[in-house]
């Protein structure tokens, strides 16, 4: 279980994350929403070690990971994908997967053997199949379509077999149809892999349709948490968010 306790981070005078306390039970699927600048990405960066929190705790199965380095946090089982696909542009899909498994098996500093190591193959193969990238295994990452690059980014996180998977806008920059394909994929992964998934999403239709639990952030604070119905009927949320710029989406 991932427990966030009183997490806080300020940039100058701006409280980007302000006393956030949340629980993500094992195997849960949670959407994080909020207007631009609500501190969603900062929240992810604090959990994954990209930023050091000013105070608070990030407990994964009781171990406090707050303020540790990204490699350490990844090794404890929190994987992430990025808003802009963060991949290795000159490696092929297959090489990317194999190298990531090598990193996870702590053989990324091995000098005397040839790449790829035989013991990395099964896991790489499995995740490529899972995300439908197996047919594109020999494509250089830079030549993949935008959607496939996002999938590869998720594959990179998934191949490490994390306990918790954080997806920062998996559908960013996609057309409507592609969005649904991607989000179906995310839901399928969550159902089959039995991992805890937390994702940031802007599209309200998607959020209300697939997320059993929603967290609304606003100015670094938690505005509301609950099921889609609870969120839809929450006055504070309607006031701060849905009632204004996203009226159309909520309707």
């Amino acid at each position, binding site marked *: 279980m991932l427990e966030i306790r009183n997490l806080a981070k300020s940039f100058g005078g701006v409280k980007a994350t302000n006393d956030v306390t949340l629980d993500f039970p094992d195997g849960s699927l949670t959407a994080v929403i909020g207007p631009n600048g609500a501190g969603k990405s900062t929240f992810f960066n604090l959990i994954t070690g*990209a930023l050091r929190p000013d105070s608070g705790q990030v407990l994964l199965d009781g171990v406090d990971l707050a303020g540790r380095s990204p490699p350490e946090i990844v090794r404890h089982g929190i994987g992430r994908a*990025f808003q802009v696909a*963060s991949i290795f542009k000159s490696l092929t899909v297959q090489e990317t997967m194999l*190298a990531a498994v090598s990193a996870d098996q702590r053989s*990324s500093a091995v000098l005397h053997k040839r790449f*790829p190591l035989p013991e990395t193959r099964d896991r790489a193969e499995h995740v490529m199949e899972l995300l439908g990238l197996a047919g594109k295994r020999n494509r250089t990452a830079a030549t993949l379509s935008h959607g496939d690059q996002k999938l590869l980014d998720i594959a990179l996180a998934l191949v490490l077999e994390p306990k918790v998977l954080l997806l920062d806008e998996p559908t960013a920059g996609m057309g409507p149809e592609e969005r649904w394909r991607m989000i179906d994929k995310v839901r399928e992964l969550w159902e089959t892999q039995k991992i805890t998934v937390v994702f940031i999403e802007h599209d309200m239709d998607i959020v209300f349709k697939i997320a059993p639990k929603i967290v609304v952030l606003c100015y670094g604070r938690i505005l509301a948490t609950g099921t889609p119905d609870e969120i839809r009927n929450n006055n504070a949320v309607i006031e701060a968010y849905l009632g204004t710029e996203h009226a159309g989406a909520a309707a």
Partner: protein
Amino acid sequence: MTELEAGRAETLAPVRGSAALHRYRDVLIALIAFAVLASLPLFTGSKALLDFVIRCSAYGLFASSLNLLVGYTGLTSFGHGMFFGLGAYSFGLIMQKLGLPIPVAFVATLVITAIIAAVIGAICVRLKEIYFAFVTLAFQMLIHSTILSWASFTGGDQGLRGGIPRPAFFGINLANHVHLYIASCALLILGLLAMRQIAQSPFGYTLRMIRDNAARASFLGIDVWRAKLTVFVLAALFASMGGMVMALFVSGAYPEFAYWTISGEAIFINMLGGVSTFLGPMVGTVLLLLLNDTVTRFTEYHGIVLGVVILFFALGLRKGLLDFVTEWFSHRRDAGEGR
């Protein structure tokens, strides 16, 4: 075995075999290359040709080691020549002052290089791009001025004079020109083979990941700083080997070996040959030394000619020669398949 498992076993087996196969292929190519080079003295008595190959060995080791940093890791060092100079001076001084057997001096020099490279690397590899480049350059100048000013030990601007003693070992007498030639070729081939292994190992792919996207690599659990430091030290070792070959060849060591221009030459070589293939710097070495030797024979303005050639590769082709050739071949192959 289910059908699915059978299918997977089929796709796995060839890959497992091919990794081993690639290694044997590399060793085979190395053996053939060594056999060809080693048999050269049988066919020609030309001392100039053998000298040329020895110089190619020294520079080839040096330039290929820089490619581990530039091409594979994306670390553009402007001071890599310091380890070339360090190798030449350490080896020369150990032989002159202590009179140890050559293999012992060789290993001792590598140990000294590793220690100094680890200290300098620990400071430098944290820095990004241009800062890394300039701080490595600063360390190069530091070593160069140390050599110049510590004249009682290093001979100052005169260099290590009086020749480097070359006592025979295991029946190898490096004072003999052909023996020196064979030994240089052997060091070159072994060095290249070792660097090739580094480049194709899991660590080599870690380096590629760091070059492409260091932040993402750290989110996969890779300690980027440690990997960069490791390759910095490894590359220094091969540069130092190149320096030792050079010291043996000229039987001395000179401050120019540690001057920043030697780093510049290695960067030139990498630009000429290309950094996207393993052998690019080796091709670049042969090109640069050929150019140097022929152009200086015709004109005293060889700097201008070399500059124009560099500009041609940098602006005209926008890549090194071997990059260009391999791309051309893959285009042709694709076109052939398309038909």
